[in-house]
């Protein structure tokens, strides 16, 4: 049962790890180590309880495994950027969209957090800011540049 479960989940694990993991500095290595430590710790706990055949402890072991899995996921989530779009404010409509070989000019490029009827919330290296939408029109979305944000300066 365990072997089948493991075999069925290993291919998506390898696929996701290959596509999403970007390890750039020692913080990323620490996060990756945290992921492995929580996974292995939860696994050892569940395996030990199963080996002792203590059926009344099975559900608490599952809860412990779930908590370990959540912490492991949180560790690995820090390797990725928030799933919010990159935008350029006061964009000139005639200019070409950047090819994202490098991050576009920082002063007019922001990450968009949210938008209400007349205010837009953005952030970039200069800080978290709120603009009146009328003051920064037009706003252009920059597709395909998200992966550049994971590379630390």
């Amino acid at each position, binding site marked *: 049962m*365990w*072997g089948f*479960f*493991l075999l069925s*989940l*290993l291919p*998506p*694990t390898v696929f*996701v*790890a290959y596509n999403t993991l970007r390890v750039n500095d020692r*913080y990323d290595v620490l996060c990756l180590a945290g*992921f*492995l430590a*929580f*996974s*292995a710790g*939860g*696994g*050892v706990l*569940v*395996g*030990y309880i*199963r*080996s002792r055949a203590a059926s009344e402890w099975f*559900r608490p072991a599952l809860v412990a*495994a*779930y908590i*370990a*899995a*959540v912490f*492991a*996921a*949180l560790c*690995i*989530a*820090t*390797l*990725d*950027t*928030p*799933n*919010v779009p990159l935008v350029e404010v006061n964009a000139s409509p005639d200019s070409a969209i950047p090819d994202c070989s490098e991050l576009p000019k920082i002063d007019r490029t922001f*990450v968009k*957090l*949210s938008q209400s009827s007349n205010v837009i*919330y953005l*952030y*970039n*290296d*200069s*800080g*978290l800011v709120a603009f009146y939408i009328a003051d920064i029109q037009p706003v252009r979305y920059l597709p395909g540049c998200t992966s550049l*944000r*994971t*590379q*630390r*300066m």
Partner: protein
Amino acid sequence: MQKAWLWMYHGMRKGTRANTGRRETFHSLSNEGLRSIAKTRDLVEAALFYFGVPAATLYPLGFVGLYLQLWSDQFFPYDYRDVYVLWDAVAYTPKTVVVGTGIALLWLSLIATSLIAGVAWLTLIIYRELPVAD
């Protein structure tokens, strides 16, 4: 209340062996009834446990995940000392994005589960191979 009494009465009549009306058959019926109620309760409990817990933790999980991602984003200039700025930034983010992050984290935790299952499996094998001390 009256309905409950009627239900019990009909249950007793159905459960008696050839309608002999013996008391022990009534007891066996009530045990069966209790067993079926317990089974339903177990099913509801299991459903709540396996689906309810992840569903209830989806938004908090997404919130914490987004908080950590913002903190580690090179574009976001604030660090761990600016807790209120980070909190505000996550609070501005639309709920759909937060829940989406939560779903992505649940998927990642499923992957972590595969590692956990693998380690548990290995632990189980190693533990069974170890000599038992008398």
